[in-house]
């Protein structure tokens, strides 16, 4: 059987073993509903507040500013739909995740402006300055892009939004646990995160809401999450998320340094093999997120051929019998079509080794050499 090489950590990650241990008691013995007043619920209730405090500490927030959700998509939807009203305007970027773009499109009676980015995938502060107005209620710009890893100048962008009286939301799903995130330093009002992107469990995330930020409830029902997000809390997943985030933050600098070395190894191998490729994204990017576009290649074919070799990556394009659909992100950075069609995303994690990276490079060389002679 082929050895699996998992290089799609921007899609999801393996559950942290400590997080799993932290979850187990709340699945088996301490299964009480945290909202009940009896003694059996005490440990579940305490675990929620300990997790809230731990997560807040990791992003320099206050515990009461952390609201648990089912993940990044719910957090993004809540941030958008919970803050705007008919007649308002949202300003966002062309490279946002669909959880933001489609939430904006679904907001009734709200006009959305999607701003262009540079060829490196950065939203320039000057572009936002030219688009934001007194009518703008919300500016939503992701902290790091999921396809190309580019990190945005969030502090500057948030300052511009606030100067016009708008709220600022950032989708930080790809960033939290991978790069330092300090909500005070960034100056954001709302921030979305998802546990399974930082070795936490799936189906859990949070929305940071700065104290005093006007936001409507996400779900109506019980009084959980300060009356803003009804529904019995998933205590096990929340406890696991907190441990996973703390561990990710503790090893962040070491992981980043190692991933940067692995990135350099991969790119050096591809260059030595004389493959014609472009690396997408900005100089400031999520460590280990490597978007590569190979000239005259087919990204989806690459993905499936790597899969047959036991290597998991993502693609930025998908084909049908008529045409290749290039992702909205690759279109927004104006990648020439000859390269865009042959785009894959390799996203490395702390478990990947140099040998695995050399295997990936060797596999790409084997597949692409006939096209790039």
């Amino acid at each position, binding site marked *: 059987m082929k050895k699996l090489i998992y290089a799609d950590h921007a899609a999801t990650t393996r559950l942290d073993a400590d997080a799993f241990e932290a979850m187990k008691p709340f699945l088996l013995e301490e299964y009480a509903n945290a909202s009940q007043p009896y003694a059996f619920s005490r440990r579940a209730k305490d675990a929620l507040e300990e997790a809230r405090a731990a997560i807040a500490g990791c992003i320099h927030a206050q515990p009461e500013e952390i609201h648990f959700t089912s993940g990044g998509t719910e957090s993004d939807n809540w941030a958008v739909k919970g803050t705007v009203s008919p007649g308002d305007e949202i300003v966002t970027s062309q490279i946002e995740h669909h959880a933001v773009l489609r939430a904006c499109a679904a907001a009734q009676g709200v006009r959305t402006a999607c701003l262009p980015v540079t060829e490196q995938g950065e939203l320039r502060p000057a572009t936002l300055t030219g688009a934001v107005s007194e009518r703008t209620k919300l500016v939503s710009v992701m902290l790091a892009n999921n396809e190309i890893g580019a990190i945005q100048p969030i502090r500057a962008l948030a300052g511009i939004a606030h100067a016009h009286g708008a709220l600022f939301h950032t989708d930080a799903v790809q960033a939290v646990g991978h790069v330092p995130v300090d909500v005070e330093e960034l100056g954001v009002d709302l921030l979305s995160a998802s546990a399974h992107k930082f070795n936490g469990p799936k189906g859990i995330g949070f929305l940071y809401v700065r104290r005093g930020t006007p936001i409507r409830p996400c779900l109506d029902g019980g009084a959980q999450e300060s009356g803003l997000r009804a529904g019995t809390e998933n205590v096990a997943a929340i406890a696991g998320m907190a441990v996973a985030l703390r561990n990710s933050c503790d090893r962040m600098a070491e992981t980043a340094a190692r991933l940067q070395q692995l990135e350099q190894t991969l790119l050096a191998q591809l260059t030595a093999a004389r493959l014609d490729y472009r690396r997408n994204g900005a100089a400031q990017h999520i460590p280990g997120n490597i978007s590569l576009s190979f000239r005259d*290649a*087919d990204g*989806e*074919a690459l993905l*499936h*051929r790597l*899969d*047959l*070799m036991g290597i998991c990556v993502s693609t930025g394009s998908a*084909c*049908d*019998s*008529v045409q*290749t659909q290039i992702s909205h992100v690759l279109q927004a950075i104006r990648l020439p079509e000859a390269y865009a069609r042959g785009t894959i995303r390799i996203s490395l994690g702390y478990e990947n080794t140099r040998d695995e990276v050399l295997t990936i490079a060797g596999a790409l060389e084997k597949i692409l050499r006939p096209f790039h002679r």
Partner: protein
Amino acid sequence: MDIKQCASCRVQPLTKDEIGLSRKLLGVQTPELFCLDCMAERMECSVLDLVIKIEEFKRQSCALFK
């Protein structure tokens, strides 16, 4: 109707699945199409690996297999 043959062993006609799989693994524009045996040899995998892939593509309603 245009009869497609395997670019390696020349067996013909290739099935719709073999044509779809060739396009999926070699690119939509590929001029070369392969039977399952030759494709497995080329990909250094088993025919079963390819059959599983074909079934996955069909479940995803991939237009190349319709």
